[in-house]
């Protein structure tokens, strides 16, 4: 019961996926080329990755308006995961800055 990708074989859009690997807090996570970082995380079954003031947070608005989905990418903090396209080898940190 978690979010997932539509399997390419069953996708009416006729996708040709090229796999992509990033790390999230050091652990490898696989996605496909072209996905946003939020898409990779959701596609891997993760619903939340950040601590908000009242509990865990993931994607809410999906288009860059709510800032719920913030992550650190390759050392750059406060990147909206729903807007940033994932690149091979991206090192994503979900922990808040100390």
């Amino acid at each position, binding site marked *: 019961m978690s979010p997932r990708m*539509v399997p390419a074989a069953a996708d009416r*859009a006729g996708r040709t996926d090229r796999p992509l690997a990033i790390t999230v807090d050091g652990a490898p996570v696989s996605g496909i*080329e072209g996905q946003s970082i939020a898409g990779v995380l959701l596609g891997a079954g993760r619903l939340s990755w950040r601590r908000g003031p009242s509990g865990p*947070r993931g994607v809410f608005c999906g*288009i860059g*308006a709510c800032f719920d989905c913030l992550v650190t990418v390759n050392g750059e903090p406060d990147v909206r995961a729903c807007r940033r*396209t994932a690149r091979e080898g991206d090192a994503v940190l979900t922990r808040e800055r100390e």
Partner: protein
Amino acid sequence: MTRVVVIGAGPAGLAAAEHALRAGATVTVLDEAERPGGQYHRMLPRAYAARSQHRLQHGWRAFDRRQRRVREHPRCTFSARTSVWALEPRADLPPLVHLLRGAADAAGGRAVLDPDALVLATGAHDRVLPFPGWDLPGVFTAGAAQALAKGERVLVGERAVVCGTGPFLLPVAASLLEAGGRVPAVLEANPAATLLRGWAARGWELVPQAGKAIELAGYATGQLRHRTPYRTGRAVVEARGDGRVEEVVSARLRPDWSPVPGTEQVLPVDAVCVGHGFSPRLELPVAAGCALDRGEFVLVDGDQRTSVAGVYAAGEITGVAGAPAAATEGAVAGWVAGGGDPAGITRLRRRRDRGRAFAARLARAHPTGSGWPGWLRPDTVLCRCEGTDYRTLRRALERPARSGARAVRLGTRAGLGPCQGRICGPTVAELTARSGGEVCTVHHRPIAQPIRLADLAGTPEKERDR
């Protein structure tokens, strides 16, 4: 030659670009997304190499022709992955356009444009009223669920309830089903009587929007009807679960949206997709100094001119009526901004007027009731960024001396988080107004998009259109 800059490449912005080109102008189109289309014609990432994208879209061919015509035009510069973070007003001239190119929220890529005319077509984001548990993971805006399904092929949950108000709930449910999910119910908060009054009155207004009406009727009578009940006068009043959504409680609503006690039903779900209409993205129009219509939308005249010289507005920022109406407004705005003769587009303008009538009809059929605070609890979070709850806001509003908008913000921190009140702003403004407090212009954000301090301090590359 007139240099027109168009901000936003959704239905409104693309049509504006096309008609400004037709009028003879040189056009630069800016959009923060990787591909044109905006929220309606959301294209899959190029890397997906999708052969049959048209199967996911209404009106794909016409859109695809238009986006190619614009992008391949010799007088057009199409600049994707470019966000406008500020507009700098100038006397008697349209504002300077400050932009950042490249990956979202990355450092570098700062530049500035100096247009003769500016078309604003920045669209909207979902409006969501708070309810207990709406901050749990698994609660998405309806638009987010739609964007992920259509634009990335990610299904947000296997069993998702779609709720809120507006015709937009139907395409969202259809996309979830198409992507292989189940939708146990679509819950429209307004009662059937309100919908009928709004939709049935003055039927002739619907004729020019027939495309939209047929699209909606298709959802209502197609596969959705057999697989998903559409229930009116009912809303999700609570989402529950341990660290994520596991079930929702829905309740019947009175016409004013106050929940009827004793009508609660529990529904197991793993996702909630909720939307109560749309909030126009007004940061840039406000930064440019454009006057607003009742504080809600950008005020425009019959030629889509705003109150600022050389600045035009089109699409959802001037009223919410769906993609066809947005495109018609964009066409008028682009034509006039590009130096075209307004007298030469009488038919287009008439079509635009009917689009506006459609917006009024939508608003009548899907109003926001005033009784929704009835489902709030003292500990319901209102501001997702700062965690401000209903109790804290009410306390601040009870002290008349402190209930000025600024005092409420500083005292409760609602609206001071990273989203700068984009999500909670309308809620806090409404609750403040009802308690008799003073309401501030929630859209005033001098920085419309995040910018790194190093970029702010650096000098931008000055760009001139050809």
